[in-house]
């Protein structure tokens, strides 16, 4: 029997629920930790970033108005589909991060568990982060958390799946939409995650995934006037980070600086809280 031809996959961007090639037509080679060729991936340009922000803005209204319960269900479904792709994730994480099969498996399990953990928070955030405030007058006074808007995320460079999930899930659980710039040299698990998102009821545009050079694309996201916050978790270069923070100041974006490399630790609510606004309402006590 003749040897079967290999079915090679073209890794593309994930924008507005579709998988387009880069507008620029460019691609780059992705290698494993030993330098062996893994795949070609789309190399995003500033115009892809622009399109992604437009898609994220368009999706914001629907996602933020969905009930918290519904968002939780959808995110839990993502974890279910991830579980179904477990073997694929393990292979990709092992190749991307140079891990043994066992450690890769542990990383994938931690990532899925992390997603489930965040999914559970969808309908619990307002109770925990909101409050009824004491005031000296005939009013009820409430503070309720609301999503910030469109959040750009520079995903961690080293931890290709667990790190990605740990920065992505806390952004969307509260109703934000996002443009994620995946790990530059380890993007394969992110591609697979985008396929998971596309097939698990997450509305198109809620998560948009770009792959490419952080130094090229991130400044356009940081300076974009229609992006409301930016997470610099994977902006490893200090000079670039400073540049991004300065650009982000133009429309007073919320900026989250990188603070950890240990993605296995209990994340707490800090990342969720970073991308929330607080709305306080005075309500007269009835007459």
């Amino acid at each position, binding site marked *: 029997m003749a040897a079967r031809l290999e079915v090679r996959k073209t890794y593309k961007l994930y924008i507005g629920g579709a998988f387009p090639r880069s507008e620029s037509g460019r691609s780059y080679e992705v290698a494993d930790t030993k330098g062996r060729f893994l795949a070609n991936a789309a190399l995003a340009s500033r115009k892809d970033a622009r399109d992604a922000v437009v898609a994220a803005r368009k999706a914001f209204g629907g996602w933020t108005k969905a009930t918290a319960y519904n968002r939780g269900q959808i995110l839990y479904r993502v974890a279910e589909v991830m579980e179904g792709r477990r073997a694929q994730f393990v292979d990709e994480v092992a190749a991307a991060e140079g891990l043994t099969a066992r450690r890769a498996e542990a990383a994938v399990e931690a990532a899925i568990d992390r997603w489930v953990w965040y999914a559970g928070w969808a309908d619990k955030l307002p109770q925990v982060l909101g409050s009824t405030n004491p005031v000296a007058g005939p009013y009820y006074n409430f503070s309720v958390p609301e999503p910030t808007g469109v959040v750009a995320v520079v995903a961690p460079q080293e931890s290709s799946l667990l790190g990605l999930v740990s920065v992505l899930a806390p952004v969307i659980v509260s109703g934000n939409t996002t443009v994620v710039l995946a790990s530059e040299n380890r993007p394969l698990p992110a591609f697979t995650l985008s396929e998971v998102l596309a097939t698990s009821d997450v509305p198109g545009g809620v998560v948009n995934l770009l792959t490419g050079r952080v130094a090229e694309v991130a400044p356009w996201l940081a300076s974009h*006037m*229609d992006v409301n916050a930016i997470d610099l978790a994977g902006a490893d270069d200090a000079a670039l980070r400073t540049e991004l923070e300065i650009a982000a100041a133009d429309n007073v974006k919320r900026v989250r600086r990188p603070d950890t490399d240990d993605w296995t630790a209990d994340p707490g609510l800090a990342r969720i809280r970073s991308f929330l606004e607080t709305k306080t309402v005075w309500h007269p006590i009835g007459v």
Partner: protein
Amino acid sequence: MTRSPSALAVDQGALDDAVRSDAALRRFLHGLPGVDQVGAEARAAALSTRSIKTTAKAFAIDLAISMIDLTTLQGNDTQGKVRTLCAKAMRPDPHDASVPRTAAVCVYNDLVGQAREELGDSGVRVAAVTTAFPSGRASLAVKLADTRDAVVQGADEVDMVIDRGAFLSGRYLEVFEEIQAVKQVCHENGADAHLKVILETGELATYDNVRRASWLAMMAGADFIKTSTGKISPAATLPVTLVMLEACRDWRDATGRMMGMKPAGGISTTKDAMKYLVLVNETVGTDWLTPDWFRFGASSLLNDLLLQRQKMSTGRYSGPDYVTVD
């Protein structure tokens, strides 16, 4: 500039003869060469692939802004809405005084007075839609009264609709005389309102009809021919605009007079606007690249142009928070 040669040999004498009777008019309009549908669509598609960048793009954006008839034609239009629209027409971007004014504000008849008052002597013109817009289903007397009302209130431009029913059933002279009558009202009592004739190409079914209706309107005295009301889909398309621009070009060849053109409806992005400008440049030439002879009937287009302009002047992408909500 590449320019496909005019297939027409028409002179002023032929035009005068054509309007002597219904039969003569029909003979003339049906004697116009047929439109090559495939060719027109292919040419429009080919011209829409041009890439306009940097300084050319900046020029085109400002030109497009200055060509906009900023339009609101909703049943729920209020005086307040017209006021904000007029403010936007005079100063499209509050943060940037270098943005040109739009050409006109286009409103329903009863809001002309309000618009006139807001715009004052700013140079932005007031256009009114009349003749029982958008359907045109009313008696001639009502249509003329409608137009007179707009002109008396101070409309600089009148956008009338043709009677598509009469046109499609072949009563060309009736349509012709109606346009003439409206034109007369535009010039009553020393007024000098420009007449734009809306063909509503979405209801004309074929490009041949679009060409005939264009000639009919031009011969009846239109100052502008306009594609659509914006209430019918499809509204303006590139091939339809191409056919009408060719009519404008042939009209100038035949009579020596220029004819304005206004695509309206469905043009909402800068990219679309650029395609139309390319089409104008390549079909009728640079003489038409001015608000005097080419207009866009649009509302949301302006915001997109402003976003692109902000991107070009600041170097960063802008967002809908930085233009007005309308």
